[in-house]
């Protein structure tokens, strides 16, 4: 019997279980992505995940770490998240390159799981967006809705693995992209939205967008699972969504012709996926409640600023990376108050001073 330190009981949780729960939560929105965008989306998801796991194995081997660490599922999850943020018909090398970059540079170079400063999936997405703007902004219209025929399994293979395949007939713009372009053409925001944005369609995911972030409703379903399983806490998503809604409301009151309003901001792009699945990544987000609230609010500010004034239509990746960089600072600045101490760490004042009681002793 080897002596072990207490406690000898355990809640039974494990890292694998956490990663598995997140993957389970991603299944609904991933499935709808496959439904909307057909075989190429499934192939892209598959190669991206496979590349992430393969990269993890190779890196672990190179670093001389136990290779079975890959079974913790974190690499699979990173790959999965990258795939969800890609245009569904992006060529295979976008997914593979993204995974390679995320796992090798974004995670293993920092020391492996738990050690990375930045969210690997978002590093990959932002890196790809800057390096390959064309492939990363070629959006596909949701096939069933646009009355387009699905490419069959073979055709799908060609789309994903043969870069020269022409897909012009299928492409469309995202709501965010549409708004940005149309605004430069001197159209007003209400006109553009009236033409291109139906909020309930957006809620169900019936519009162009990344593989897994189109259906807000199913992202919320997954989020509810994560909250119920206590994988994530409410602070970051709530702060992020509330702040974004507030900023959008104020902006649309001040400038109704140029601003799209809160409903548009909340249901477009990757905000919900980002708020619940990306910004809540425990490794790269802060610990205490206050710091989490600030982290979420900070993400929202960056998202809003870049969407409205920046060069890119979407900014969840930038926002998360920016706030990741501030995480150590937030952690240092906002620690929970310790029992028996003030917020500044000084002992609480003594309420019952020593009293001189002579209990019948001869003095």
């Amino acid at each position, binding site marked *: *019997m080897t*002596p*072990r*330190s*207490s*406690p*000898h*009981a*355990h*809640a039974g*949780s*494990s*890292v694998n*279980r*956490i990663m598995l729960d997140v993957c389970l939560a991603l299944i609904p929105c991933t499935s709808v992505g496959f439904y909307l965008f057909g075989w190429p989306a499934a192939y892209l998801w598959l190669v991206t995940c496979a590349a992430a796991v393969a990269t993890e194995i190779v890196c672990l081997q190179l670093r001389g770490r136990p290779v079975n*660490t890959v079974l*913790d599922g*974190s690499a699979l999850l990173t790959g999965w998240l990258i795939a969800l943020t890609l245009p569904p018909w992006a060529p295979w090398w976008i997914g593979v390159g993204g995974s390679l970059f995320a796992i090798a540079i974004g995670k293993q170079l920092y020391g*492996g*799981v*738990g*050690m990375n400063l930045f969210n690997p999936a978002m590093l990959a997405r932002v890196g790809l967006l800057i390096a390959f703007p064309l492939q990363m902004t070629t959006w596909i219209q949701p096939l069933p809705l646009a009355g387009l025929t699905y490419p069959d399994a073979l055709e799908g293979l060609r789309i994903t693995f043969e870069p020269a395949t022409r897909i012009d007939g299928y492409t469309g713009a995202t709501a965010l992209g549409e708004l940005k372009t149309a605004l430069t053409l001197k159209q007003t925001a209400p006109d553009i939205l009236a033409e291109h944005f139906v909020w309930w369609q957006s809620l169900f995911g019936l519009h162009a967008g990344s593989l897994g972030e189109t259906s807000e409703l199913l992202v919320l379903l997954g989020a509810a699972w994560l909250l119920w399983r206590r994988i994530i806490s409410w602070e970051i998503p709530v702060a992020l969504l509330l702040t974004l809604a507030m900023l959008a409301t104020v902006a649309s009151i001040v400038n109704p012709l140029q601003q799209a309003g809160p409903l548009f901001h909340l249901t477009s792009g990757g905000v919900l996926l980002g708020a619940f699945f990306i910004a809540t990544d*425990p*490794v790269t987000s802060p*610990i*205490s409640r206050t710091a989490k609230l600030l982290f979420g609010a900070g993400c929202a500010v960056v998202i809003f600023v870049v969407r409205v004034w920046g060069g890119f239509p979407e900014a969840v990746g930038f926002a998360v990376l920016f706030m990741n960089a501030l995480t150590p600072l937030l952690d240092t600045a906002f*620690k*929970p*108050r*310790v*029992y*028996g*101490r003030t917020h500044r760490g000084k*002992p*609480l*004042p*003594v*309420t*019952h*001073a*020593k*009293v*001189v*009681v002579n*209990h*019948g*002793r001869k003095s």
Partner: protein
Amino acid sequence: MLKWSGVKGGVHPDTHKDRSAALKIVQASLPDCVILPLRQHAGADAIPLVKPGDSVLKGQLIAAAGTEVSAPVHASTSGRVRKIGPVQAPHPSGLAADAIVIESDGDDRWIDLDMPDDPFSQAPMELAERVARAGIVGMGGAIFPAAVKLKQGARHEIKTVLVNGSECEPYLTTDDRLMRERAEQIVDGARLIQHILRAYRIVIAIEDNKSEAIAAMRAAAEPFGAIEVEVTPTLYPMGSAKQLIQEITGHEVPAEGRSTSVGVLVHNVGTVYAIQQALRFGRPLISRVVTVAGGCIKSPRNVETVIGAPVQHLIDACGGLTDEPAQLLLGGPMMGVTLPSTQVPVIKGATGVLALQRREVSRATESPCIRCARCVQACPMGLLPLEMARRAKVDDLDGADAAGLKDCILCGSCAYVCPSHIPLVQYFQYAMGEQDARKNAARKNDYTRMLMDARNARLEKEVAAKAAAKAAKKSRASSTSESAP
């Protein structure tokens, strides 16, 4: 979950209390020999007063308290002292500790007990002294000498005597059974403590999963004023003094302070019972109730045994083992220590003996921290266990302190919830031990330096004195030669 008052954090481990709580306390038979370690308390070793070969009677003082913070040891049965020396101690290291081994003569003959008068008519300090002489320590596992606490408390204004019946550790049901079966004695003991401290009121705190104990204590407290039975939620570590005070009074004990700083004194139910036995009947602490439980015990229950009985003796009293245990523990699974064998003795602070099956203990290997912060949410002290462990791992002791190590109560809530199975408590214990070692080394250095300085000063003085004497002699010699004719 939002909670604005009461205990923050905490965990809800499976209680596993039903089986042992259902049965009455049973008296264990007398073992052939009892092993009484000289240190069963926080503080200095007790000093033996007997020698091998001596005959002793049950209840006889055989080792006296070493210092102010220490506790005496009494023979727990009559017989002959077989040896005084190192035995395997109930400590995970399996290292030896000094003990007095008594061979039982089977008569279990009491010494003449000094029957006290009505304790309520006696001076409080007199009573505290009696508690000290009875060798009573914190029976909930803290093993701090009870009398030291009473004497310290008597110097403060104590509003509340808090009787701790929360028993939040899984498996353990000694306090539960004691409250059900000996409620009147516990209430009497609490009132005696109140008398010693001149406290305003008594609160008996019990977790809400012990409804029968609550009913029994309420009934026993009924005839008296200023005694309340308060029901607390079932939450680990509710039985920690700091957390219980927070739950009951709403006050936090200031860091680096004692519970007396907020006008509270906490005693465990078992301690209160032992104090009552000492003050009413003059009985020293030579027996206690121990929960014997775990998946490998045939019929888990509470056993009243003499202190010093081998653990194996208790296991036999519960029908023996059904299986080779994966883990043998002294105390509960959250804060208990592994036992090196079943031959080690039951000590005063032994709340339970657990023989756990493989499925009952956590055996997963450690994986890297993913900063999920569950440890932070679980910590009842508001600390950052993940940061503390990170610093302790690289021997950054000051950093670990800054992250909260100095306020850590080692409750293990953090490690209980850690999905990466990081042995956080082990890191904390290591860091605390290292800090103690450094402090001791520093103290030793200071002491050595002090001695060196003193020696140098003395030598200098001697040299100066010699020189002065020489000079005086010289001058005397010259003056005599001058005066010579």
